[in-house]
């Protein structure tokens, strides 16, 4: 399998992972808003920490994409 084909498959997989993480973050935000309006403050910080963790995963995957491109171009 050529590197280009591998890259296409890899990026499709990364895109699915990132999209799933964003959907999870959206759900966390919905839960947080509901908790905030309901006066249940204990769940807010863990939800925010979870969301930040997902952001870190997404940022890591994006960084991987950039590095992959750079390596392919031989820079």
């Amino acid at each position, binding site marked *: 399998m050529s590197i280009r084909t591998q890259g296409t498959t890899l990026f499709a997989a990364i895109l699915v992972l990132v999209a799933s*993480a964003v959907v999870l973050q959206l759900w966390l935000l919905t839960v947080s808003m509901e908790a905030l309006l309901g006066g249940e403050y204990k769940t807010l910080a863990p939800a*925010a920490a979870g969301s930040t963790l997902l952001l870190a995963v997404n940022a890591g995957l994006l960084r991987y*994409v950039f590095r992959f491109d750079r390596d392919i171009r031989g820079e």
Partner: protein
Amino acid sequence: MSSETEVKGCAGCPRSAKWQRDFPIEWDGDHYVTRREMVKFLTLGSLLLASANWITVVASKLLHRGSKAESNIGSVSDLDRNGSMLFRYPTEQDPCIAVRTPEGKVVAYSQVCTHLSCAVVYDKSEGGFFCPCHHGVFNLQGQPVAGPPTRPLPRLTIEQRGDQLYATGMEA
């Protein structure tokens, strides 16, 4: 289908409604969003969502700060054993209810029912709080025991100094 009957740059798209001719779409350009661009876009969205989550944490701290004020709510002698007293805390818009239990302990809760915000009243005979709107019942610990409410009444911390009672905070 011949190329004459297709929209330029969109194989299989039939040519021709008038609006399509009036407002042509550059399908090639429209479809050209690479996976890399999509990942970048989603990561930016992810950053915004994480920020929004932290904003809810900050908002909760700000809302909570208002309930740290200290307020004199009356004297112990105002409260009969197994009796109740209404007061406002932390602002004039927040009705609360204090109860002296049959054991002599003073407890206080927000008077706003966690179901649909009606005012709960103390039910001496049952030893709990009753919401007349939808027949919700809370026990003396503020926990819902019957009816539609599912969340407990917010509890106030009460300090007794001599004969005087002070509300010093509201628990979430």
